[in-house]
């Protein structure tokens, strides 16, 4: 059974409590209509409900969430999936800055562009490997302070005069990997970031995630992987390890 909630005029606390309450009663499918800037939707729920959002969800969508699956039929704002631990967030539009801020597990798929600092502080531990895929272009500071995880930018809808990624890619990055569909000019790389062609093992990982992304978004996988990708990673695992330990 799908529970439909009209979010019009609701404060985020009331909206989120309502979702939580119905979830505790056993509802697993939600349709939330007329969302207008309400924050933290999907936060604090123990379980894996599916929530379809119509409208514009507010900042920190699914912050600290643990398994919630969210589909946004529209655009998202800043800090989508802030520190999320598990689940899948799908945005059929664009997103603001700091997508996947400190994310530690799960997946975030954005159909169009995203703002600055995508995947900032992304991290991983053993089998917890978060994945972010942005269909469009991104702003500066992609993967800033990245410590783990996979950050993918496709630039599918960029025009000839637009660039897929901004400057300062991977500034402060010391773990994880970024795959960019196309070339990245050397001046755009943060200090200590290496750019190279993908190895066989990279292609395997990339294809796995892209085929899932293309399924969800309804995009032709062949077209996406027809272009050469660039791999970005930090060639020193602990570049700041001795900074405070002389």
């Amino acid at each position: 059974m799908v529970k439909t909630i009209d979010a019009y005029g609701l404060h985020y606390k009331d909206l989120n409590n309502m979702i939580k309450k119905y979830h505790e009663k056993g509802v697993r499918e939600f349709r939330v209509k007329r969302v207008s800037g309400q924050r933290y939707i999907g936060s604090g729920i123990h379980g894996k409900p599916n929530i379809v959002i119509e409208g514009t969800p507010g900042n920190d969508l699914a912050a600290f969430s643990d398994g919630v699956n969210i589909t946004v039929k529209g655009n998202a704002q800043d800090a989508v999936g802030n520190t999320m631990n598990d689940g899948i967030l799908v945005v059929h539009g664009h997103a603001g800055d700091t997508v996947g801020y400190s994310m530690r597990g799960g997946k975030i798929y954005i159909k169009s562009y995203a703002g600055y600092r995508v995947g900032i502080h992304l991290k991983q531990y053993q089998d917890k490997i978060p994945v972010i895929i942005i269909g469009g272009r991104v702003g500066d500071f992609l993967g800033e302070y990245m410590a783990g995880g996979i950050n993918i930018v496709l630039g599918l809808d960029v025009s000839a005069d637009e660039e897929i990624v901004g400057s300062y890619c991977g500034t402060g990055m010391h773990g994880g990997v970024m795959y960019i569909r196309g070339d990245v000019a050397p001046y755009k790389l943060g200090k200590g970031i290496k750019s190279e062609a993908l190895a066989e093992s990279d292609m395997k990982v990339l294809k796995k995630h892209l085929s899932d992304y293309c399924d969800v978004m309804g995009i032709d996988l062949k077209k996406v992987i027809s272009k050469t990708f660039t791999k970005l990673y930090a060639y020193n695992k602990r570049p700041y390890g001795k900074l405070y330990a002389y």
Partner: protein
Amino acid sequence: MLKKEGQIRIPAGCAISGIMDKKGKRFSGEMIIDSISVMHERSNGLGGGFAAYGIYPDHKDSFAFHLFYDSKVAQRETEELLKKYYDIELVEAIPTRKVSAIKDSPIIMRYFAKPKIDELYQSGFNEDDFTVKFVFKVNNGIDGAFVVSSGKNMGVFKAVGYPEDIGEFYKLENIYGYIWTAHGRFPTNTPGWWGGAHPFNLLGYSVVHNGELSSYGSNREYLRQNGYECSLQTDTEVVAYLFDLYYRKHKLPIEIVCKILAPPMWDEINRMPREQKRLYKSLRAVYGLGLMNGPFSVIISTGTGLIALNDRIKLRPLVVAEKGDMIFIASEESAIRAVCENPQKVWHPRGGEPVIGLLGKTVSTYIEHNYIREVTA
């Protein structure tokens, strides 16, 4: 009395919104209230306000002074000064209604006035500079008096409270303008007081700001050397004065002013083609002290347009949309969509990339090529 900025520190973002009709058609304040109230969470009730343009068509050639007074004494002293320098057309209390959330209201007055010809002549100033002098004289010289706005055919309405309550307090649903900007405050290191709320204004320039200018100290000293007294001890004040200095006094194009406030990084300048490099090097050499550092997103209105600008590394949010003749700017997309269904275009400007909407023109995200010749000639 409430403590002023700088006398106290409260450890604690902000909401900004701007709407303009490019054709100059006026609309009620309800729309901007509906927009800013969506971002309630970005404010904490310690300040908010609105700037509205085109609201006094019957007095459009007079300076419209909005004033706050803490006391009758301050009011008397200010009115004497005003009478000395200006011919006053009309004096009235700014209409307000009782709103439980808005407390400790000062005396709120407005004056439509023109500089006295002989005083103006003696001063040797034009009427804008004459009025700037007057504003600083009141704000720095009269205890308990504060000039809220001093432009023509425009006004600022601000208070301590949440913006939606402030809109109700000032009955903005009855006021019609072609440009509206709004601010919801979340002071991070200073108290909320009525004068310290945004928008900040000087003549026709008003500014709403989300962020914190770490360059405030150097900007302030630079402005002091150019005759601007920063008396409010708040960073945003400098944006209004820098705009007045460069745009009105130095007559620089708006685009260039924006590139002074948020210039490209040196490494970016070094990668530019020769002519362009010369332009930006010149700007940084001549106007380096006007550079604003630290996180900011600002909406500046000049009366003839609306300008949105982010800091260069984009540490604050900013979204722009267009539909028909309307331009919308806000901290969050939801605040735009709340008042504009199905915008034709929605985008997030890059750090340091100004968005400029001028009356009667299409919105430009600007390119410097038009100016290269001027500077290098």
